[in-house]
């Protein structure tokens, strides 16, 4: 990679696989359960977190030398809250229906452990460029899992992808439905999101034994 040094590139690639915020660090689970019933919501959520975490990491990194460490959590909260309000207002202005689907979960990005975790663990101790890469990488790792879960839940739960029917029409009985297939209602319930995330964790740790924790 010409653009990035090897060390910098690792900041992006690590969270995508072997140090994934959801499947390895098990952070940000709540939103992964709540909004992944539809692929579109998963994608929008991923982009929102990408924006908040990328920009937030840079802002915190720039301020890292002037933030008194006793009040750093409050400063971090103000930064993330500001960014989340921007995202919320943009969604309300340009994608009103979607912002209603996501409801409180846009606001709850503020409490997403991944964001505070990266501020604390990385942005407070690194320069803005590296912090930016770290933010993008972690948000992408979060987004990838969200999109995988959203893909399977929408496909198997509603028979659609991004709202477009792909398996036929369940009422007119076309496509797969003509041979007796039916949507799996369990997929739309939150427990199934947890199970899908669990299966991803299982597959990942089976492929890479180094990730299995010792007891």
């Amino acid at each position, binding site marked *: 990679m010409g653009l990035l040094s090897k060390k910098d590139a690792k900041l992006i690639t690590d969270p995508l696989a072997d140090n994934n915020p959801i499947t390895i660090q098990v952070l940000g689970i709540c939103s992964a359960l709540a909004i992944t019933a539809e692929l579109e919501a998963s994608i929008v959520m991923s982009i929102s977190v990408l924006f908040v975490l990328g920009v937030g990491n840079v802002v915190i990194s720039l301020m890292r030398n002037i933030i008194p460490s006793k009040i750093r959590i409050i400063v971090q909260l103000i930064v993330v809250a500001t960014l989340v309000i921007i995202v919320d207002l943009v969604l309300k202005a340009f994608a009103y229906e979607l912002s209603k689907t996501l409801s409180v979960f846009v606001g709850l990005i503020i409490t997403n452990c991944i964001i505070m975790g990266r501020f604390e663990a990385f942005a407070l101790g690194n320069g803005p460029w590296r912090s930016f890469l770290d933010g993008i990488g972690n948000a992408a790792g979060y987004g990838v899992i969200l999109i995988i879960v959203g893909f399977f839940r929408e496909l198997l739960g509603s028979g659609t992808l991004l709202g477009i029917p792909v398996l036929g029409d369940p009422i007119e009985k076309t496509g797969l439905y003509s041979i*007796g*297939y*039916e949507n*799996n*209602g*369990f*997929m739309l*319930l939150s427990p199934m999101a947890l*199970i899908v995330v*669990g299966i991803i964790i*299982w597959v990942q740790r089976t492929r890479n034994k180094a990730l299995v924790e010792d007891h």
Partner: protein
Amino acid sequence: MGLKSTLHNLKEKYKGTKMAPAFNAIHTFLYLPNETTHNGTHIKVADDLKRTMNTVIMAMVPCLIFGMFNAGYQHYAAFGTPVEFLSWDAFYIGLIKILPLVIVSYGVGLAIEFLFAVIKKHEVEEGYLVTGMLVPLIVPVDTPLWMLAVAVAFGVVIGKEVFGGTGMNILNPALTIRAFLFFAYPTWMSGDKVWVHGAVERANEIAAGAELDAISGETILGGLAQGKDLGYSVADMFYGFIPGSVGETSTLLILLGGLFLIFTKIGSWRIMLSSLMGALVMGLIFNGVVDAGWITESSKFYGLMSTIWWHHLLIGGFAFGTVFMATDPVTASQTNKGKWIYGFLIGFISILIRVFNPAYPEGVMLAILLMNVFAPTIDHYVVQGNVKRRMKRLKVKTA
């Protein structure tokens, strides 16, 4: 060359290879294992896991056969051409509808067990033998086979194999399978159509414009949840001439199966008895609420709340769940005191869910799954309580 020697040769041939567990399992299933262990001290007992499993299956076979007769009987009764209960016509319908359920349940479940045994390099365990027989008994007769296959795959993998296979699971696998079906395909697991063979088909024909009479085969629970009295006599409920899941209707045969399990010391009488008591206590409480006039007839809970307290034992899947599923030795409490608490709460919560959640009239499934989760906690406190008591005794003695 006979089957036994063929199997033995196959087993020897594949010894040490990846496929060895699969051949060992077939050999062990059909014949007595010819290996003995050579070192250490041994206790010789006849009831290995295979015999335990087979005993439970034997206790369930009457329910299965009764279920086949009942499936046909309910079918013809609903379609207005009643036949004798013990007739070939009735049995034939049941046979062609229920045998595929049994085959799919065992086929898919055992295939997954074999697959995991080969991948994880351990012997195939006998645990699925009972689960595979339970599953067809607790689903409606018209359950589509592919749905059953998906549910069995889910239940065996997520309910059992991820925890480490037979003996390690937290939840009862058969109930995990049923719960999956229930939440994934609710239209096939509840309502007034699925319990009688042919009713769904007829409803579809009517929707397509055919001029036929609608067939309704509601379960007693489903009826009561809507405040309707379906008018079955107590004898019908007890002998099992009522619509319901395949094997759950005949309280008499379940009772006999339960006595058989208690007599052979396979099933825990403590769990069965305490669950019974739990259900009766809850039933009495609800009857008391009705008698005291705290609830009016217009309430949506009135139908099930005013059900005579001991009728709860005869309707729905309560008896079947209590006898065959609550007593699963893996997922139940292990301590004797724990078994009393575990069983009592299963009965108590079953009736509670049944009455207060008309959308889930089959409370026993959810009650057992819930108590499966709490069983280790109950055991923990029972053991700790015992430790504490003995510590106190020790202190008194030494002081």
